[in-house]
């Protein structure tokens, strides 16, 4: 019968967390770390900080990452080149530009329908969507009300892990769209060929 080892000191907790994070296939939330070790949130956070400090040293190859609502162990980025031969026959094919743009739209506007995506990109979204679904970066999120009850899409936890974000709130802000100015004026029509003289015919500003 195995004895469950309950970490009694902070240092023992650090060791326990390191072991848990080593075997976890997914990032582990702080609450879960507390549940597994019998420690409260403050203790877990203190131990994580200590672990992170220890790993920052030059002679350690792993680091702690806060991603997808939890913590994970990963190799330090400068070592990635060394590891490439060990990590599989070939890296997965990179996302196409179409898939990236579709993913950006879903990330910032989720939940969103395929029609909305197509309206924003000006092209059909079917194959890009399928690519993202296959890679587990987006998933279905119910259906929208209204005619046809179209499927809604959102990003997945794997998406957060893919781009290293702790949560969607950590997405970089969407670039601003330049405002039409002066306010509410519509583009004037320049009737007649450019070289013809005469003032442009301007349309009245919207009230």
């Amino acid at each position, binding site marked *: 019968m195995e004895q469950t080892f309950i970490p009694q000191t902070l240092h023992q907790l650090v060791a326990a967390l390191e072991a848990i994070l080593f075997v976890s296939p997914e990032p582990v939330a702080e609450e879960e770390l507390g549940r597994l070790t019998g420690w409260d949130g403050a203790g877990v956070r203190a131990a994580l900080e200590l672990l992170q400090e220890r790993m920052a040293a030059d002679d350690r190859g792993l680091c702690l990452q806060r991603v997808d609502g939890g913590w994970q162990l*990963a190799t330090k980025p400068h070592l*990635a080149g060394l590891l490439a031969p060990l990590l599989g026959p070939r890296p997965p094919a990179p996302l196409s530009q179409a898939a*990236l743009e579709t993913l950006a739209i879903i990330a910032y506007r989720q939940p969103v329908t395929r029609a909305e995506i197509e309206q924003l990109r000006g092209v059909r979204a079917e194959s890009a969507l399928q690519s993202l679904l296959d890679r587990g970066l987006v998933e279905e999120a119910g259906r929208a009300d209204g005619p046809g009850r179209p499927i809604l899409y959102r990003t997945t936890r794997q998406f957060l892990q893919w781009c290293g974000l702790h949560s969607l709130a950590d997405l970089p802000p969407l670039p601003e769209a330049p405002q039409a100015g002066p306010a509410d004026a*519509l583009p004037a029509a320049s*009737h007649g060929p450019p070289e013809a003289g005469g003032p442009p015919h301007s349309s*009245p500003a919207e009230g």
Partner: protein
Amino acid sequence: MYQVRLAVFEGPLDLLLHLIEQQQVDIWQVSMAEVAQQYLDFLSQLPAVELEEAGEYLVMAALLVRIKARHLLPPRAEETDAEEEDEAALEAMLLARVAEYRRYKEAAAALKELAAAQALYCRRPGRAGVQEAPAPAGPPPGLSVDKLAAAWAAVQARRPPAPPPPPAPRRVNLRGAMGRLIVALRRAGGRLSFRRFLSRRASRWDWIVAFLAVLELVRQGRLRVRQPAPLADLHLELSAGSAEAEAPRQPG
């Protein structure tokens, strides 16, 4: 720019964005007449096969023609302010769409960088892959032409042998057959049993040709056929008409 192919752009909005940014002014100051013209010029110099796959580009082209027309034509006397505003609104909506598209294009680039940075943090292999792309990103390693050929040969060996190809179609000399039938009929005094006629013919192929000749002669009105009962013999009779006393007519 005109050497660039459509495949470089992600769609009509992307192409429009490219043309607008080339003008290097604020998007709302851009000359839409010029952009429209450049867009149409670009499409017009593409080979036809690329255009066939580019329906969305053509839909946009139609809108741009309309926008361009507004800039080129003098205002119509009967055009109301409301109509003019509608046309202006179309243009504004298009510019807004392009501006909106640009936001997500830039956001996509930012996501790509985030993902590239994150990719350097490696997890233990054998775990649930963060990004399991579907299989075909390339052929499996160690694949060579010889292996492919050997695999194909093995598949072929397992298949049952192909049936012999059907015989090549033979040409039918209908005129000749019709001529022989007429000759036989005349020799028999204008009446002939089809079975009798067939008995002198060697092969099934000849029988088929002879039957076709009968049909054609009937169609031309030169032959009458009676069949007393189903599946009985055909009694052939030259039609009354002076033509059959002559040499056979050329088939029609």
